């Protein structure tokens, strides 16, 4: 058996692919597993366990064929054809696309694979996401505040391995361990690794804030040692930090480690202070604990370190996390984490002391990672407060989507119970925190779902009468439009409308009867989800039960 994984993303996402690789390896011990990555990330790809062959694609070189007159267009075209030929010759049994880009979708269509999972294009070049987990990933980028699944679970889910207990992991070569031991000697004081940069400025916490927190930490923890890690481009940040904290004992490793050596350094650290970075995932993969400050684009629900007991901080600002198409000119979220408070948090984490009792922050939340009853990563809030509307709805959405993806029934009682446990809120109190017109809008959505279901079933009666079918489909269009309108007008309902839209856009290529049946199921799911949410708000259990998709 040959399995292909296409992951043309970045360093961190590749580390997050490791549980999927491990799960596939366990499920298919004899299979050949091929991993296709961007050339820039070949180093981390080489450390991922379970891979038989890494294929590299140099996207920058291909791009030059169109941009640089010194390169010939035909050279670029032939290079693409060579890639397609080589990958096509693999004749994969199954190809997973873990990349959310149109380029990767086109590349998927060039692979020879009996089964394709994830973002692809259909015969006419239109977008097609064949897997519900990966479809959810593509959908929820447009409603990020309500996104509640970790990327690793989504990757695992794509292969039917969600909840399988697989964890992050990389191979750390002995030579790298030896090099790390030379650079970071054993010492008396606790060793804190600090990663200052991130893949984009939009996810990078300010150096000044970090320096203030480290000074507060140093005052509490005599003997503290810091290892500054990162790439050479982060030199200016490191210099600024050292200038701001001249008394802090620092081992400066900026630009001095390979990825393998970085992994080995992180193994030796008790904790990593970081933003939402690839280094964070690497630390988690080698068993180091992490404390990550999520700012800007960073969303801990999507990309917190995949393991037990990692710490994640995120802003409570209404705009947090940033939408992907936003370039923030006033990143207020960077100052939501008071340095003294953070110094205390880090001190306790480094001393393995309990974190309970830390004062709640006014504008930020502290979470600890854990796995829920389905084996999916969850974020446990470490300070209780009245939840915002979107947090209550997100609890319900997680349950609803788990129901669809894993078949575990979503029940109002268990959602209420989760809200009580996390936020101390009783069912009767739900409606107080939510928009007054939400129940009415949910009622309309349920009604629209019911009506669309009926009209879809009517299509079956038309048989092969194309004209009648066209008329029937036209009668569905206004219902679809109203559902989309409700999802846009009320962001809290966006996941319902987006999920339906995505499902209808990605109907499998099959016969008419199957298409109609699949469409009907999706409208039925919408109705059920809207009814359950309505029941939650009204504090009336007994909503429709059972799997719907």
């Amino acid at each position, binding site marked *: 058996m040959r399995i292909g994984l296409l992951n043309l993303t970045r360093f961190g996402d590749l580390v997050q692919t490791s549980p999927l690789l491990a799960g596939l390896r366990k499920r298919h011990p004899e299979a050949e597993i091929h991993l296709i990555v961007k050339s820039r990330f070949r180093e981390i790809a080489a450390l991922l366990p379970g891979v038989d062959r890494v294929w590299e694609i140099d996207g920058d070189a291909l791009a030059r064929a169109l941009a640089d007159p010194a390169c010939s267009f035909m050279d670029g075209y032939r290079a693409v054809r060579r890639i*397609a030929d080589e990958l096509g010759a693999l004749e994969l049994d199954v190809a997973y696309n873990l990349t959310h880009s149109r380029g990767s979708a086109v590349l998927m269509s*060039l692979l020879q694979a009996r089964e394709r999972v994830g973002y692809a294009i259909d015969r006419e070049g239109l977008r097609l996401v064949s897997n519900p987990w990966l479809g959810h990933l593509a959908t929820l980028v447009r409603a990020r505040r309500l996104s509640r699944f970790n990327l690793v679970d989504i990757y695992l889910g794509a292969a039917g391995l969600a909840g399988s207990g697989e964890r992050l992991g990389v191979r750390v070569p002995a030579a790298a361990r030896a090099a790390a031991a030379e650079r970071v000697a054993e010492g008396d004081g606790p060793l804190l690794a600090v990663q200052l940069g991130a893949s984009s400025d939009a996810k990078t916490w300010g150096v000044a804030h970090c320096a203030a927190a480290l000074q507060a930490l140093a005052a509490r923890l005599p003997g503290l040692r810091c290892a500054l890690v990162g790439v050479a481009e982060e030199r200016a940040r490191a210099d600024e930090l050292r200038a701001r904290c001249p008394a802090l004992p620092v081992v400066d490793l900026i630009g001095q480690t390979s990825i393998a050596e970085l992994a080995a350094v992180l193994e030796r650290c008790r904790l990593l202070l970081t933003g939402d970075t690839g280094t964070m995932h690497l630390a988690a993969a080698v068993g180091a604990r992490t404390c990550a400050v999520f700012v800007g684009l960073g969303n801990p629900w999507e990309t917190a370190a995949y393991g037990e007991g990692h710490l994640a901080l995120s802003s409570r600002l209404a705009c947090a996390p940033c939408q992907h198409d936003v370039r923030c000119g006033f990143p207020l979220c960077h100052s939501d984490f008071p340095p003294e408070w953070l110094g205390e948090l880090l001190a306790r984490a480094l001393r393995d002391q309990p974190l309970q009792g830390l004062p709640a922050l006014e504008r930020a939340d502290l979470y600890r990672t854990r796995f829920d009853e389905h084996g999916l990563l969850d974020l446990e809030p470490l300070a209780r407060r009245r939840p915002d509307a979107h947090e209550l709805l997100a609890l319900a959405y997680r349950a609803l989507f788990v129901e669809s993806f894993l078949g575990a029934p979503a029940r109002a009682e268990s959602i209420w119970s989760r809200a009580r446990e996390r936020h101390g809120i009783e069912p009767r109190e739900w409606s107080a925190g939510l928009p007054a017109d939400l129940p009415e809008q949910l009622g309309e959505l349920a009604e629209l779902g019911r009506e669309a279901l009926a009209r879809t079933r009517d299509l079956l009666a038309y048989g092969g009468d194309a004209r009648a079918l066209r008329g029937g489909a036209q009668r569905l269009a206004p219902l679809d439009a109203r559902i989309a309108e409700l999802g846009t007008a009320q962001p809290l309902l966006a996941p319902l409308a987006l999920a339906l839209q995505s499902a209808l856009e990605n109907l499998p290529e099959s016969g008419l009867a199957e298409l109609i049946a699949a469409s009907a199921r999706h409208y039925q799911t919408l109705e059920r989800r809207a009814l359950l949410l309505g029941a939650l708000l009204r504090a009336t259990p007994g909503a429709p039960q059972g799997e719907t998709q």
Partner: protein
Amino acid sequence: MDPLARNLAALRERCPEQAQALLRCAPDPGVELRTARSGALALCAAGRLETSLEDPQAEGRELAAHLLARAREAGARRLVVLGLGIHALEALAQFEGELLIVEPSAALARAALERIDVSAALRRCALLLEDDPERIARHPVFAGRERGLLLAHPAARRRAGALYDALLRRFRAGGETGALDIAVIPPLYGGSLPVARACARALRELGQRVRDIDLEVFWPAYQRLLAWTADARLARRGEQLRAALVRLIGEALLAAFELDPPDLVLALAQAPLDAHALAGLQRRGIARALWFCEDFRVMTYWPGLARAYDLVFHLQPGEFGQALRDAGGQGHPLRMAFDPMVHHFVSLAPDQLARYAYDLSFVGAAYHNRVQFLPALVPLGLRIYGTGWPPTPPFDRCMPEPGARQSPEASNLIFNASAINLNLHSSPWVDGVNPAGDYLNPRTFELAGARAFQLVDARSDLAACFQPGAEIETFADLEECRRKIRHYLGHPDERREIAARAQRRALAEHTYRHRMQEALDVLRSGAVALAPRRCGSSVGAALDAAAGEPELRRILGRLDPDLPLDAEALAAAVRAGTGPLSREEKLLLYLREARREVVIREAREAA
């Protein structure tokens, strides 16, 4: 051996006839060498120094570095430089491709080469002592086919600006010059707005990729700002607010170009691009040209823009060309024109004749000289259309549509309906005909294009465009104007013949398409550093390269071969197909996506 002997020996190796020319040349008393503070010699021609008297050698090296950088940016394998630039020569000779130095003053070259040894450089480049553009254009380096660039030393541009302009018209950058991606930036309102539209249309007809930039949406906001700050006490505040709006528009345009920058921005006079936006365009590698279709003596805002644009097209050669050069800018004369889509001959319907048919019509705004001149023509049946005319005698008696601004289409009807159309170029300083009038307004070409008979005030540039008396009639003063009105009102056949000849000439030489072709020729000559990545390859070139790939050629064949081959072209080629995607279409789509990802990443990093 003295410097001259060494220089001549070197010159004989590569250009023996130039060595002869140098020896034949008599010394010019107007050329002298002065000793600079650094001890080096500085050339001085006709009383103007070629370099400063500080450190000419350092200046020369710096200048050469700048010219070489421009050649690198343009991907040039062929470099023609106007001006000997004696102190830059050695560094310039490091150019890796073919280098031709053109010095129009043999006397200046002789004076320099007698005293300064540049023999090593002369062995590595070609020197041409010549001031005739035709002969220069025949030089094999100048006429070469490889990608090239024509540049000039600032001092040479000062003393031989006309020659440089002539060379620019003749030089071809060569290499693969596909269609350009051009954003034409109109003003918010006013006379240049239809000109912008006509330019965009003409460029499109010439196979360029033109972006429609519509800024009219900002005009109401601009007017509102004017209204809110109309009080004289708010004048300064009003200026600030209008400048802020222009800044906003510039920022918006920069954002619009962020991910997919055009090769060139062609702005029309009064386009809302301030220095900040122009600098932003430069940072993004977008070439910037302005068509300053205004009278530089009246509209005096140009010095602030001269250096902010890579090239300024203008209406007034001679004095203005020199003024632009002095201000550090680069100019090229480009006359006004007409758009045959708008101004053309029409047979008028009875209702149109009833509305517009008069003996003598004038269309235009109430500038000072017109207000002074036209009342004397009211007794001859004059009708006036346009804005700003006082609603008082005698104007109130001769305005069929008082205060209304005539659309270009309505103007065309008036032109066609009137027996005689009067065209008086505006002037704020004289009372009637401007005796020093030089450039031609658009009306001159529009009337000709509409096959309408016109009487136009005498202009120095007129004879270059139309033959007076045969293709156009002129007047130098009120008396001549009156006399000719009376004559032509009585001779309709003469009017028709002159108008027909004017239209033939206008269609043959004076459409916006002609002007835009001239502008493109100048731009492609290397006058503006067009980023090579954008015009580096065309669909046509790719078609040639894909000779053995029939399916690929079939897909690319869906596109205009002159289009630049970029990510969008590939997407368009695939989109133009029908049915399931072929393997080749998928390969092209992947190449396109690879490019897009890099463009987006680079744009984010730049931001």
